[in-house]
C-alpha cells in the first residue's frame, strides 16, 4: 500500500522536532548540507536520475521524435493478428526501431508510452505535493505559532486526515465525479481531481512536522526578540519562522513526491486514474496484466515507476541526512 510509505515521516516527526541545533561557526547550514549531500553517492545518483526524469518528461516529444514513434500511433502490421494481436518479434518486438517493444492489440510503441507516461506521473505528483505542502505548512505554522485552542483544533484535524482511508476515498471520489464537472472535461478534469484528492488528503504528515518545528521555534530567543521589538504575527511567521522551516519543508516534499507517484499509479491501475489513450504508467500496467505472457509489457512501465520512486527516495533520504544536524 502506498499509504504505508507515508507512515515513515511520522516517526521522524515524533523524534526530530525540538532538537534544532546551532550551525557550526563560519559555515552556514546550507553549505554544510551541500557538502554532506555531495559526499552521499546514493543521494547524488538519485538526484541525477530525478533531474534526468524531469528532463525526459519535459522533452518527451523530442525524445520520442528521435527514438520512437508517436505514442498513439498504431502498428498493427507488426502484430500476429491470428493469435490475438501479440507482437510478432521476439521479446515483444523489441528492436532498434521499437526500443521497449510493442503493445499488443494496438501495436503502439511502448517506449513512447513510457516516456510520455513520465509527464502525467510527475505532473500529478508535483502538483499534488505542492498542494499538500501549502496546506500543511500554513496549518502547521498557524498551529505551532498560536498554540492553545488553535493548536488543538488543527491537531485534531491532522489526526483526522491521517486516519483517512485515503486510497478508498480516492477511488470513491474519482468514481462518483461525472464525466464533466466544474467546467472541465476529460483528462483535464481527471488531472485536477487527482491532484486535488492526493494533495488534499496528504498534508497531514507535513502539517504535523511543521507544527512541531514551529512550536519549538516559538520558544527561541530570536522570535522573542522580534516580538519584543514590536513585530506582529504575520511578520514573525513570514520573515522569521518560514525561512527556518525551509529545510524540513524541502525534505518532506521530496519524500512526499514518490508516495504521490505510487498513489497516482495505483489509482490508474485500478482504472480510476487518467483515461486512455493518454499514456500513464499505472494504466499501462493494468492493461499489461491481461498479457502476463508478454513480460516486456509488464516490465517497462513497472521499472519506470520503480526507478522514479527509488530515485526520489534516495535523494530525499540523502537530503534529510544532510539537513539533519543530528547526523554528524
Amino acid at each position, binding site marked *: 500500500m502506498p499509504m504505508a510509505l507515508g507512515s515513515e515521516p511520522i516517526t521522524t516527526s515524533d523524534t526530530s522536532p525540538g532538537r534544532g541545533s546551532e550551525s557550526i561557526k563560519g559555515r552556514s547550514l546550507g553549505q554544510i548540507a551541500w557538502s554532506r549531500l555531495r559526499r552521499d553517492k546514493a543521494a547524488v545518483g538519485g538526484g541525477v536520475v530525478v533531474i534526468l526524469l524531469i528532463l525526459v518528461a519535459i522533452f518527451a516529444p523530442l525524445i520520442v521524435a528521435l527514438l520512437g514513434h508517436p505514442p498513439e500511433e498504431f502498428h498493427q502490421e507488426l502484430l500476429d493478428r491470428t493469435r490475438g494481436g501479440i507482437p510478432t518479434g521476439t521479446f515483444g518486438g523489441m528492436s532498434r526501431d521499437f526500443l521497449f517493444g510493442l503493445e499488443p492489440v494496438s501495436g503502439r510503441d511502448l517506449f513512447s508510452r513510457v516516456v510520455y507516461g513520465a509527464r502525467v506521473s510527475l505532473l500529478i505528483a508535483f502538483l499534488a505535493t505542492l498542494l499538500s505542502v501549502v496546506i500543511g505548512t500554513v496549518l502547521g505554522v498557524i498551529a505551532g505559532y498560536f498554540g492553545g485552542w488553535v493548536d488543538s483544533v488543527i491537531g485534531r484535524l491532522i489526526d483526522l486526515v491521517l486516519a483517512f482511508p485515503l486510497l478508498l476515498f480516492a*477511488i470513491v471520489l474519482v468514481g462518483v465525479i461525472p464525466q464533466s464537472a466544474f467546467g472541465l472535461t476529460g483528462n483535464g478534469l481527471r488531472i485536477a481531481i487527482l491532484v486535488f484528492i492526493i494533495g488534499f488528503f496528504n498534508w497531514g504528515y507535513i502539517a504535523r512536522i511543521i507544527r512541531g518545528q514551529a512550536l519549538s521555534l516559538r520558544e527561541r530567543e530570536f522570535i522573542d526578540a522580534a516580538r519584543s521589538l514590536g513585530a506582529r504575527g504575520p511578520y514573525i511567521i513570514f520573515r522569521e519562522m518560514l525561512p527556518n522551516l525551509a529545510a524540513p519543508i524541502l525534505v518532506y516534499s521530496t519524500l512526499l513526491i514518490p508516495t504521490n507517484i505510487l498513489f497516482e499509479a495505483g489509482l490508474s491501475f485500478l482504472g480510476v486514474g487518467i483515461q486512455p489513450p493518454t499514456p500513464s504508467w499505472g494504466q499501462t500496467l493494468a492493461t499489461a496484466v491481461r498479457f502476463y*505472457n508478454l513480460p516486456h509489457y509488464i516490465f517497462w512501465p513497472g521499472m519506470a515507476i520503480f526507478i522514479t520512486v527509488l530515485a526520489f527516495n534516495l535523494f530525499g533520504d540523502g537530503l534529510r541526512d544532510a539537513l539533519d544536524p543530528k547526523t554528524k
Partner: protein
Amino acid sequence: MVVVSMITFAIFFLVPRLAGQTPELMAARYVGPRARSDQYHEVAERLGFFDPIHVQYWHWLKAIFVGMEFNYGNGVEHCPAPCFGYSYLRSTPVWPDLLERVPVTASLAIGAAVIWVLFGVSTGVISALRRGSIFDRVSMGTALAGVSLPIFFTGLMTLVIFSYGHPFRITAPGSSYTPFTENPAEWAYDLILPWITLAFLFAAAYARLTRAGMLETMHEDFIRTARAKGLAERAVVLKHGLRAALTPIVTIFGLDLGLLLGGAVLTESTFSLPGLGKYAVDAVMRQDFPQVMGVTMFATFFIVVANLVVDILYAVVDPRVRVG
C-alpha cells in the same frame, strides 16, 4: 466518527449533485440499465432523492442504528440494523456483504502483519547494531527497493513467477479464498502469495523505521546509563533500546493494520481476493453508491478503533505515558 460519516455522506450525495447530476440521473443508475426513462422520476422520489440534504443524511445515519425500509418496486424491502445501506443494483442490503468479506481481509492483513513485524523489526534491529556491515547495506538496499516498488507490480510478478507459469504453480490465486475454519492448510496456501507481497512492502518500511529508531535510541543517555550500570549488552539492547525504539512503531503498526483491515485495496485487486477492498473497487466500477458508502464507513470504523487501541497500547509500551 461523526465527522467521518458526514464527509462520507457528502462525497456521495453532495459532490455528484454539485457536479450537475439530477435526482433522476442518480435514480437511473439505481434502477438498472433496462428501465425506461419515464420511471426515473418516480424511483428518485421513492428513494427520497428530492428530500433536503440534511433529511437524507439523517435517514442514512438513522438506518445504521435502527435499520430502514426501502420502498422499492415490489412493496417494501427491509434492511435491518445495522443498515449500512441497501444496494438497489443488487437488491440486497450491504451489511451481510461486508460481514462476509471481513474474514478475507482480516486473514490477509493479520497474516501479513505477523510476517512483516517479525522480518521487518528483526532486520531493522540487526542492521542498527551492525551499522555499516554487509548485512546492513544489503538489507537496507533491499528495504529501499521494497518501499519503492508499487505493490501491484510486485504482486503481478509473484503471480507470473509462482502461479500463472505452470511449472512453478504453487497456489491457485484469485478468489480461491478458503475460510480458516473450513481448512486451515488450504486457507494458508491460498493466501501465501498475497501475504508475502504485502508483507514485503511493509517489512521494508518497518526495517527502515526500526533501524532509524534504534540508531537514535542507542545514543540516548539512558542507554549509556544502562551500560554504565554494567548491564549485559543483550539486556541493554532488548530491554532498553528496543523498547524505546518500538514505541513509535507501535503507533504506526496500529494505524497501518487499521487501514488494511478496512480493505487492502491494491493487494486484493491484484490477487482478486474477495475482501473489503475488492468489494469497494467493484462497487465503484458498477457505480453502486450504497455499497461504496457502506464499505467506506465500515473501513473508517476500523481506523477509528485502531487509533483507540494504539492510544491504549502506547500507555503500555512507553513508560512515560503511564498514568499515575
